[in-house]
């Protein structure tokens, strides 16, 4: 296989295990927070949801970044391809999520006046 020798891929095994360690650590932190639900974070509302939820959201995005950048090799792709993939997807998802959540909150506000919790 003479033609194989020219490729420039060096092994990333060390980096892969580091990323795995980071992802596992974040997951463990998430689960501990999810079980304990510290009152200060869980009951403090900030921009529409609790601080705890914001922490979960940010940690999730960090995990997603780790998977996409290092496991899916986005880091090694050309920046044009990377931007085409990431910017488009992130923009569309943010757009969709924002509209749906605002709408859901509005329907909830209107409907809660008509829901009976006593008999």
């Amino acid at each position, binding site marked *: 296989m003479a033609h194989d020798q020219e490729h420039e891929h060096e092994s990333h095994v060390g980096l892969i295990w580091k990323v795995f360690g980071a992802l596992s650590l974040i*997951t463990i932190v998430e689960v501990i927070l999810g079980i304990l639900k510290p009152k200060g974070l869980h009951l403090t509302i900030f921009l529409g949801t609790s601080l705890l939820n914001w922490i979960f959201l940010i940690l999730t995005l960090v995990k997603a970044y780790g998977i996409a950048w290092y496991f899916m090799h986005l880091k090694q792709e050309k920046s*044009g*391809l990377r931007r085409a993939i990431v910017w488009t997807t992130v923009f569309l998802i943010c757009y969709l999520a924002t509209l749906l959540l605002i709408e859901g909150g509005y329907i909830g506000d209107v409907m809660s006046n008509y829901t009976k*919790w006593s008999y």
Partner: protein
Amino acid sequence: MEATIATENKEGETWSGGGKKPLGSSYGKMMMWFFIMSDALTFSAFLGAYGLMRFKFIDSWPIADEVFTHVPFLHGHFPMYYVAFMTFILIFSSVTMVLAVDAGHQMKKAKVTLYMLLTIIGGLIFLGSQAWEWKNFIGGTYGSLILQDGKVVQFVDASGHQVALEDFVTKSAANERVAHTKSNGLWYVQDAGALPPFTTSEVIESFKNSPNISLRTEEVDLATKHKIILSREDANKFLSKATGVVKGANLKINEYGNTLFADFFFFITGFHGFHVFSGILINIIIFFNVIIGTYERRGHYEMVEKVGLYWHFVDLVWVFVFTFFYLV
């Protein structure tokens, strides 16, 4: 250069799309990315719809860590331990996948084979765990009563923890109900599902005889984020509206509260589980291709990289499902 041209006409180059590589990405790889983007938007639509319904019923949505509390071989209340384990398994199978891709870049066939095998095993463990999780959810944990307007009330002890119906309800022999089967009645009629373990009147009767059991509604006190526990006289008012006993969850009825919670759980984790399933199938095909040396002859292991992208994407989706279903 000669060598490069020679490999292009060799077997198995059907999917390479020729030698042109816009943005440094081959045809197959770019198409995999396009597919992943469209699939990501599909999943966002599902999770977004879940979010909409959740905000719509923000004052009564089930609390996830009261629902998913099972761990195999153990009895008790273990919120989220098992899902954390599943997440860990999937991340680990992602690691073995990326190690397979890495070994492929260095043309190490034996290592690629081993890591692909580990990835497939990881996927199977995850799928099995998913099935077990579904089994528990469908079978139910505590049981509850459904009221005539579709709301669900649950039973809690003095400390506010849920109590299973079996723990306080006494069966009365008088209203034993035999399941209707095709062989002992009208052959074209059958019971819609498994019969609940107790009748409504048995549960109400036993509740009246157990003063330390309280009734809990679906309604969440937004200040403390706990479900509201009713006083004794309110509880009796609620019980007078009870129409049936619910054990477990399906698409029509859900002992944990809002039926939409069960619907979205089955739909989103089911759709994700189907992705894992097809990912395992694709991985198996590639695994055998590696063994018979297809990619060795082709001169590169890009196919492993492409299925790797799909597999990582499945992991990526699970990270979000985990957050939005179990944590938030």
